[in-house]
C-alpha cells in the first residue's frame, strides 16, 4: 500500500477548453512534482477535451495507461494516487444517462460505468477510487435512500476489490444530510479545540522559528509542510474529509 501526499489535478480545469494540450498536462505534472508532491489524483469527466477524465480518451492521448505512467515518471510523478468519480454525473460516452445511487434501478448502469474506470485504475496501479456517495442535495430533493446508497457502494467495493482497488466514499459540501450519526460527527468536529494554524499575519519580528532559515537536509525530495503537521500512520485510509476536492477552493485573499 503506498501512502504519502498527492495533488488533485482538477484545479487546472478552469473552463471546458482549458488543460487539454499535452504540454499543459506536462507543465502541471512538473509544477506538482517541483512543489514536492510525488503523486496526482485524476477526476472523471466526459468528452474529448476531458482527456484525463475518460479511460478511452486517456489511452488515446498517451497510447496506453502504461504510456501515461511513463509520462508521469518523466515529469517526476511516481503514481496516480486516486481518481474521483461521481456516478450521478451524465457522460456522453454513456449516452448522458442520469443515474442516482438512491435508485436501485440505476445500480446496474452504475456498476457497468464503474467497470471502465476500475479497469483503468488497475492498469495504472492506482489503489483508490473516490466515489461521490450521492448527487447534490439540490438535485436529490427528498429522494435520498440510505439503504440503496449503501447497497450500491458495497457492490462497488466488491467490484473494486477484484481490481485491487479500494472504494473511498466521498461526502462533500453539497451532499444531503446523510443521517443522525453523520450530523453528530459534524457537530463534534466543529466544537473540538482549534490549534492555531500557522498562517502569515504580518511580518514576524524577533527570533527565527527553529527549522527555517538554516540549510535543510537535501533528501531526494524535501517534504515542506508549511502549515500543520503530516498525519501519522501508514497504510490506514484516511476518514472521508469534510469537504471533498470539489468544488475548487476559492483563492485566499479579498
Amino acid at each position, binding site marked *: 500500500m503506498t501512502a504519502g501526499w498527492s495533488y488533485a489535478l482538477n484545479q487546472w480545469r*478552469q*473552463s*471546458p*477548453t*482549458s488543460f*487539454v*494540450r*499535452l504540454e499543459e498536462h506536462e507543465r502541471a505534472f512538473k509544477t506538482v512534482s517541483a512543489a514536492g508532491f510525488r503523486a496526482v489524483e485524476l477526476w472523471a469527466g466526459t*468528452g*474529448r*477535451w476531458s*482527456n484525463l477524465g475518460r479511460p478511452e*480518451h486517456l489511452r*488515446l*492521448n498517451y497510447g496506453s495507461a502504461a504510456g501515461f505512467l511513463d509520462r508521469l515518471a518523466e515529469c517526476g510523478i511516481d503514481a496516480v494516487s486516486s481518481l474521483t468519480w461521481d456516478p450521478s454525473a451524465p457522460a*456522453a*460516452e454513456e*449516452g*448522458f444517462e442520469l443515474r442516482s445511487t438512491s435508485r436501485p434501478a440505476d445500480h446496474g448502469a452504475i456498476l457497468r460505468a464503474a467497470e471502465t474506470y476500475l479497469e483503468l485504475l488497475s492498469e495504472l496501479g492506482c489503489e483508490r477510487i473516490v466515489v461521490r456517495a450521492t448527487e447534490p442535495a439540490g438535485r436529490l430533493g427528498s429522494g435520498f435512500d440510505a439503504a440503496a446508497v449503501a447497497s450500491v457502494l458495497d457492490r462497488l467495493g466488491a467490484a473494486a476489490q477484484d481490481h485491487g482497488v479500494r472504494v473511498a466514499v466521498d461526502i462533500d459540501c453539497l451532499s444531503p444530510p446523510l443521517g443522525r450519526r453523520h450530523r453528530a460527527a459534524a457537530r463534534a468536529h466543529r466544537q473540538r479545540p482549534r490549534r492555531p494554524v500557522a498562517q502569515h499575519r504580518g511580518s514576524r519580528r524577533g527570533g527565527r522559528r527553529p527549522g527555517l532559515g538554516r540549510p535543510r537536509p537535501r533528501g531526494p525530495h524535501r517534504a515542506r509542510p508549511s502549515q500543520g503537521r503530516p498525519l501519522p500512520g501508514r497504510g490506514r485510509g484516511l476518514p472521508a474529509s469534510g469537504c471533498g476536492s470539489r468544488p*475548487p477552493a*476559492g*483563492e485566499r*485573499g*479579498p
Partner: protein
Amino acid sequence: MTWKRWSYMDHWITRTPQGPRQPSFNRKHTERYLRQLEALEFTGFDTFSFALPVYAGLYGSVGAFERVLQDHGFAGLTGVFSAYPYATDFAAPHRRETHDRIVADFERTAAAVEGSAVENVIVMPTNTYFHVEPVTDETIKVTAELWNRVGALLAQRGLALGCHFEFWGAIRTEEELALFFEHTDPDLVGFFCDTAQHTIAGVDPLALFRRYRERCRGFHFKDTHNVDDFEAYRTPPDAELMATGVPRWFYEMGTPGGLVDFPALMREILDSGFDGWLTVEHDKADLGGGDFAESTAVAKWYIDNVLASARAGAAR
C-alpha cells in the same frame, strides 16, 4: 445600408476570484456578460443546446432567460448549436443505428426552444474525421439521410436546420460538400457558413455561399491565420485544440494575418438579399493570452468601421 442583425455565439470567459470561468455559473456574471454584448449593440444571441438547461436553471426556464435577453436589447434567443464531436454507441451520424437517438435529441431541443425567437438550429453534421474514416460516398449518404429526418421534424416546428462544417469534420472538401447537399432536401437542410472553418479546410467560403445561396441559413464570422495543409483534421485525438504547431486556429475579424476576405463576403451577402442573422463567433479567444471581451469589441469595431463601408453593388 448597414447591416443591423448581428448575433453573438455564446463563448465567453469572465474573471472571478476562482479563476477564469464561463459566466453562466451565476446571474451577476451572466448579466455583466450580456451588458458588454449589449454595449456593442449585438441584438441576437445564439447558444449551445447543452447550455439551455444551465440558463433555465439560472433563471427558471428558457423563456425566462429569453426575457432577460430582451431586457438587454436582444431580439431573444436566436440560434441553438448542437454537435457530437466523438462517435459513441449513442450518436454517430454515419451509423444508421444511432439515428433514432439523435432525432430524439433534436425533438427535445426543438421543444426546449418552443416559442422563443430561435430561427436556426445549427449542427455539426458529422463526428470528428478520424472517427468516421474512411469517408466514402456511403458515409455521406447515410449522414444526409439523418439530417433530412431532423430537418423535417424541425421544419414542422418552424425551425430551420443549418449544417456547419468544421475543418476537422468528415464532410469538408468541395466534393464531399457537393455530395452531401446533393443528397439533402434544400428546403429541409440548410447551409451554415463558418468563414474560418472552410478557409482552414482549404475551401473558399465566398464561393460556397455563391453556390449554396438559396439554402444558406446563416454565418459564423471569424478569421484564421492558418490553412490546415498537414492533415491536422484527421489526427487523433483532436485537431481543434491539440494540432501540432498550431495552438490557436481562430481569431476575431480584422487581425493582421487574417485570411478571410470579409468585405468581399459582405458585398456578396448584401447583393444576395440574404435576410437572416450574421453571427460573430470567438471560439477559444483566450488562448495565448487572448481575451473574449477585447476580441468581441475589436470585431464589432471592425464591423462598424470597415464592413459598414462595404456597399451592396459596390465595385468588386
